C-alpha cells in the first residue's frame, strides 16, 4: 500500500512537470513570432525544441491521466452493469492497456538504444542527438505499464468501480 503511494506521488509530479512543459512551449513559440516579426531574426531552435517538449509532455503524463481516470472512454454499457461485473471490466481495460504499453515500451526501447549507440542526430539546423526525444517512448510507456499494475492492485484493495469523471475539453 505504501509502495502504491510512492508511485502515485511520482505520477502526479510528472503530470505537473508536463503541464509546465506546455507552458514553456507557449512562451518560446511567442518568442519566435516576436523575434521574426519585430526583430527580423527568426530562431533556428524554437520549432525543434517545442516539438521535443510536446513529445515529452504527452508521454510522461500518460500515466497521470490513467491514474486520474481522465482517459475518454464510452461508459454507456458499463453504466448498466452490476458493480462486480463493472469491476471485472475495469481490470480487463487495465490489462489491455498494460499489454499495449509494455509492447510499445519494449520496442521503443530497442529504437532508442539504437539511436543512442549510433550517436545519430536530427540532422536539422539545430542538430541535436536523436535519443533526447526517442527515449521518451520507453520511459513514458514503461511508466504507463507500471501505473496499470498499480491500478490493478488498487482494484483488489478497493473494489469500487471507477467513477465516470467529467473533464472540460
Amino acid at each position, binding site marked *: 500500500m505504501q509502495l502504491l503511494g510512492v508511485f502515485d506521488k511520482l505520477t502526479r509530479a510528472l503530470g505537473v512537470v508536463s503541464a509546465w512543459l506546455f507552458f514553456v512551449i507557449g512562451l518560446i513559440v511567442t518568442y519566435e513570432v516576436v523575434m521574426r516579426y519585430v526583430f527580423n531574426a527568426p530562431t533556428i531552435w524554437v520549432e525543434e525544441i517545442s516539438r521535443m517538449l510536446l513529445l515529452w509532455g504527452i508521454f510522461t503524463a500518460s500515466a497521470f491521466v490513467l491514474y486520474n481516470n481522465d482517459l475518454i472512454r*464510452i461508459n454507456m*454499457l458499463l453504466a448498466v452493469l452490476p458493480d462486480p461485473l463493472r469491476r471485472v471490466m475495469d481490470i480487463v481495460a487495465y490489462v489491455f492497456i498494460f499489454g499495449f504499453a509494455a509492447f510499445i515500451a519494449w520496442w521503443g526501447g530497442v529504437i532508442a538504444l539504437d539511436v543512442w549507440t549510433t550517436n545519430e542526430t536530427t540532422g536539422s539546423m539545430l542538430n541535436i542527438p536523436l535519443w533526447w526525444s526517442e527515449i521518451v517512448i520507453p520511459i513514458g510507456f514503461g511508466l504507463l505499464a507500471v501505473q496499470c499494475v498499480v491500478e490493478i492492485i488498487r482494484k483488489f484493495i478497493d473494489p469500487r468501480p471507477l467513477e465516470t469523471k467529467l473533464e472540460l475539453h
Partner: protein
Amino acid sequence: MLEVIVILLVLFGLLFAGIPIAFALGGLGVLLLYFGDFSSLMAPQTLYSAMDSFVLIAVPLFLLMSNILLKAGVGRDLFSAAQAWVGHLPGGLAVATVLSCGVFAAVSGSSVATAATIGVVSIPEMIERGYSRKFALGLLAAGGTLGILIPPSIPMIVYGVVTEESILDMFLAGIGPGILLIILFCGFSMLYAKFDKRFQMQPKAGWAERKLSTIRTLPTLVLVIIMLGGLYAGIFTPSEAGGVGFVCALLLTTVIQRRLTWTDFKEALIDSMKTTVTILLIVAGAKIFGKAITLYQLPQEFSTLIADTFHSQGYMILAICLSLLVFGLFLEALSMMLIMVPLLLPTLLVFGVDPIWFGIIFVIMIECALITPPVGLNIYVIQAVGKATMAEVSAGVWPFVLLMLLSVIAVYFFPEIALYIPFSA
C-alpha cells in the same frame, strides 16, 4: 469488404467494453500489425512520429488560452455585454447566449470549453427569466459546438494533420458556416420566444450600462482581432497563433484585469495538460490504427466499393453524412473523425471533392455528434453545468440538430459559404 466490417466490429466491441478510446485504437492497430506480419518497430515509430509535429502544438496552446479566459471569468463579461445590447428583444437572452458563444468560440478551439464558459452564466439566468429548461440546456449544448466551427478549432487542426490540407484554409472556411449557424440559432430562438407563453420580456438596458459592459469585453474582442487578423495577414501560423493567444490571454488576465489568481492559473495549467494528453493520445492511437488499415489496403478497397455503389458525388456525400449521423450517436466526436477520415480520403480523391469543403461538412457533422445522445461530450458538460439529467438535455437538443443539418445542406448547395473567404484571401 468483409475485413472492413470485421475490423470495425472488433473496434466497436473494444470501445463499448470500456477500453479507453486511445488504447482501443492503438491496441487494435498493434494487433492488426502483428497478425499482418508487419514489423513490431512500426507501432512505437508511429506513436513518436504522430506527436513529433509542430502543428499539433496548437492543441495545448489553444486549450491554455481558453482555460485561462474561462478561469478569469470572461464568460460573464461577454454574456453581460451581449445581454445589454439584445436582452430586451424577444428571445433576447437566448440571442445573447448564442452571440457570447460565437465570440468565445473565436478564442477557443474546443466546443466543451465554449459550452462550459458561457453555460455557467447563461443557463441559470435564462431559467430564472422563464425560459424552459430543456430549451436553455439544448441551446447551450448546441451553442458550445460553435467552438469547433469558428476558428481556432482543434478538430480542424486534426483534420489538417490527417489530410495534409492547410489548417489556415480550414480555419478561414469555418467562419462563413459559423456565422450561418449563429444566424440560424438566433432566428430559431426569437421564433421560439414568440410562441412560448411563459416567456417574460426584459427591460431595455440603458446606454450607460451598454457602454460599461462593452468596455469590459474590449480586451477579449482585441484578443479575437489579434488572433484572426494575425492569421489572416500571415504574421503567424495557426500553431504560433495558439502561443500568441495564450501569452496575450495571460497578460490580459493578470497584468491588465488582475483577475487571475495563482490558484486559477495552476488549475488552468493542469486542466489544459489533462485535456491535451487525453486528446493527443487518441490522435496517436488512431495513427497506429490508420497505418494498420492502410497496410491491409482497406481504405483503397473501401473507396472502390463506394465508387462502384454511388455514381454521383451528391449521393456519396449524402451517404457519408447519414452514416456520420448514425456513428455520431455512439462515437466520441474526435475519434469519429480520426477513424473515418483516413478511410474516406481515397474516396474523396476519386470523386474530386474539395477536401476543405468536405472538411467543413465533416466538422458540422461532428457538432451533431457532440450533442446527440447517448454519447456526446457537450451533453455531458451541460448536464454538469446545468445540474440536469441526460433526458432533459437530450429533449432540448433536437431542434438544433435539425438546424445543423440544414446548414450542412446549405454548405452542400452553396460551397461559397465555406470557400469564399479562403479562396479570396
